């Protein structure tokens, strides 16, 4: 018997019933049922704060899952997710991509605090601004390298505790449907406690903004090779001119050492 291929049409699920938002449990259960029925392209309508959308969903590249969210998804969008693609047609709330392992999240708006917390792989693209502690404690191992790109600016503690992965802040803003540069892409305490991974900021970064153990480093060929495909994908996602982005110089931030707190503790027995 032929294995049924995944149905290509979008399955539309409304997140409201009789103009009242449904609970997150019900919404997420509908998503799981849809996937079980091989309807792996899901369009959610009138989402209003439901949490944990995409929690723990797994899929491979060959057998993808796509979710389009119309409305405002609640906290923990894509938490523990491993493979699917989620697109949000608007702003998101806190903890986007929390402990995410793989997959892609595209936000056509702003995200709030702690996006990409403990991210282990996959990609997050945010068109607008982010809040506090973006990319905190991202990790990487060999080919598992998470990527998080903010189109706008991040607030304080961008990349705090970073242990791996790639973080970008582009300092762009949409104004009357064309793109301008923001004054600054980042805030103080940048990369505080970073001991692995790389942060790329478009524009300059005042020294006073560097967090504990964070250091500006020279660009190399390697960095260009890393950045170009990421910027290309970002531009495609939000229909922005790639050249405009690349016109401005980037600052690269890396760990001053992989053990920034080595001298802090003393291990001798007393």
């Amino acid at each position: 018997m032929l294995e049924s291929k995944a149905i290509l049409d979008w399955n539309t699920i409304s997140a409201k019933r009789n103009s009242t938002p449904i609970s997150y449990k019900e919404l997420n259960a509908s998503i799981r049922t849809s996937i079980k029925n091989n309807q792996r392209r899901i369009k959610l309508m009138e989402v209003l704060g439901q949490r944990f959308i995409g929690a723990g969903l797994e899929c491979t590249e060959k057998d993808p899952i796509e979710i389009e969210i119309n409305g405002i998804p609640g906290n923990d969008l894509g938490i523990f997710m491993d493979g699917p693609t989620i697109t949000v047609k608007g702003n998101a709330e806190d903890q986007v991509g929390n402990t995410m392992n793989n997959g892609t999240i595209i936000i056509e708006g702003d995200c709030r605090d702690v996006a990409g917390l403990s991210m282990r792989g996959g990609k997050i693209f945010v068109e607008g601004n982010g809040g506090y502690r973006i990319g905190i404690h991202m990790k990487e191992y060999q080919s598992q390298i998470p990527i998080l790109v903010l189109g706008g600016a991040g607030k304080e503690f961008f990349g705090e505790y970073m242990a791996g992965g790639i973080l970008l802040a582009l300092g762009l803003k949409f104004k009357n449907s064309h793109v301008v540069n923001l004054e600054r892409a980042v805030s103080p305490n940048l990369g505080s406690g970073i001991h692995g991974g790389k942060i790329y900021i478009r524009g300059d970064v005042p020294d006073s903004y560097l967090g504990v153990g964070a250091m500006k480093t020279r660009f190399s060929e390697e960095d260009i090779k890393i950045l170009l495909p990421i910027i290309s994908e970002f531009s495609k996602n939000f229909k922005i001119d790639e050249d405009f982005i690349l016109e401005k110089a980037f600052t690269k931030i890396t760990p001053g050492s992989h053990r920034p707190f080595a001298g802090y503790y003393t291990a001798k027995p007393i």
Partner: protein
Amino acid sequence: MREVIAMAVESNIRHNIPPKFFVQFNRERCILCKRCTINCSYGALSFNGERIIADNYQCVMCLRCALMCPQAAIKIEVNSFQYAPHYNYDDRIRRIIYEQSGSGGVLLASSGCDLPYHHIFDDLLIDACQVTNPSIDPLREPIETRVFVGQKLPQLTPEMDSRDVTLEMEFPPNLEIQEPLIVGHMSIGSISYNACLSIYKAAQEIGTLAGSGEGGLHKDFYKYKNYIIGEIASGRFGVDMKYIKGVAAIEIKIGQGAKPGHGGHLPGEKVTKMISETRMIPQGSDALSPYPHHDIYSIEDLAQLIGALKETTEYQVPVGVKIAAVHNVAPIASGIVRAGADFITIDGFRGGTGAAPRIVRDHVGIPIEVAITAVDQRLREEQIRQNVTIFAGGSIRYSADLIKIIALGADAAEVCTPVLIAMGCTVCQSCHRGLCAWGIATQRADLVQRLDVNLASKRIMNLFKSWNEELREILGAMGIDSVESLRGNKDRLRYVGANPKIAEVLGVKHAGE
């Protein structure tokens, strides 16, 4: 670049202080086999061509050399060199100050608190039956010690009564363990691969649970997943879908007794290639877990993470929370239950650790005896006690402590240090250095292979078996044939200590009453 908090004006301007330990050789018995020099991993012993010599400053009194010497020719002594006596500024305080002024660092330590705070357990005695009701013989009659871990219901509804009620049926997920004792969380990283494997094998054989610790689960250990509680700590090390969906239960670690308020700490010396792979951080870097979970800043955030985990596991797996015993432990526990936790672990201030600032290890937290009492009491007052299973940890040293903590209100206890000791640990408090000569708290391959997995796991099984038998002996003497009837049964304890306020706080009568 902003330097790390420039604490040290200049580091390594160490004082001349006498070594803490002295290695003594019985030169007559020594046959110069040099086994001791190979066994010592701290660089304290060497052969100078003529005889074995000791660099006493390196010795940590782990006793590996002494116990491996075929001639029993080595004795380790606490150095009797003394400073002029001063009751207040005793030797210990003076050494601490010398060390700090010499290095400018925060003193790191491992294992549990070693200060002489009073043991409340030792002031409690257990009742036995005489005449008015019979004691039970554990050898010939059944005495049951099985415990179920997870949320229970306030009542079963009539439709359930008419069918065969099994645990899976519309009942919150529960796990069955054969005795009220589990192995607590020790991460791969803080302890070795062999040590972890020994623990998980033993847990499977005994039929109980073992904690994974916050380092994630090595791929080789997934065959024991049905006996493993997966920890999700602030560093989120090793947390992927395979882990979340694989383990038998999930525990969110908010804190541990040894260092309330602090995150996990794995010194760079122990972050080998294997650890780098499991934790996804650069090799050699310190694996410092953030102090809070950065998505838990308030009680409703904890409810959110519990909700996320239950949603991700489709409500099939018990999700619990571990906290350190602190002053407000009772209302905090109440909040945790209301946030949806299926089990709570309370870790007392004496709990052990692979690495913690000494000052936190020794001075922060409260004793587990009062913490469990407070939590049990509060949850009962709010009529939510049956919503959770409570684990007690933080220096449950032997089965007497186990029995007493169950009588004070816990469902079961979790132990770590006794398990390490069962594997051969001598509690020398040097785990944070990664040089454990016994192959337990190290990642160095040459040392790890010293720990025989078969032997170690059998020893842990023996430990659990003997504690269970002792539990049954005492239950029998108390005339109780099921451990459920011991839980919270404070009436069967009496206080014999000097401070009646403690008895009052514990809700235990004084002996004679």
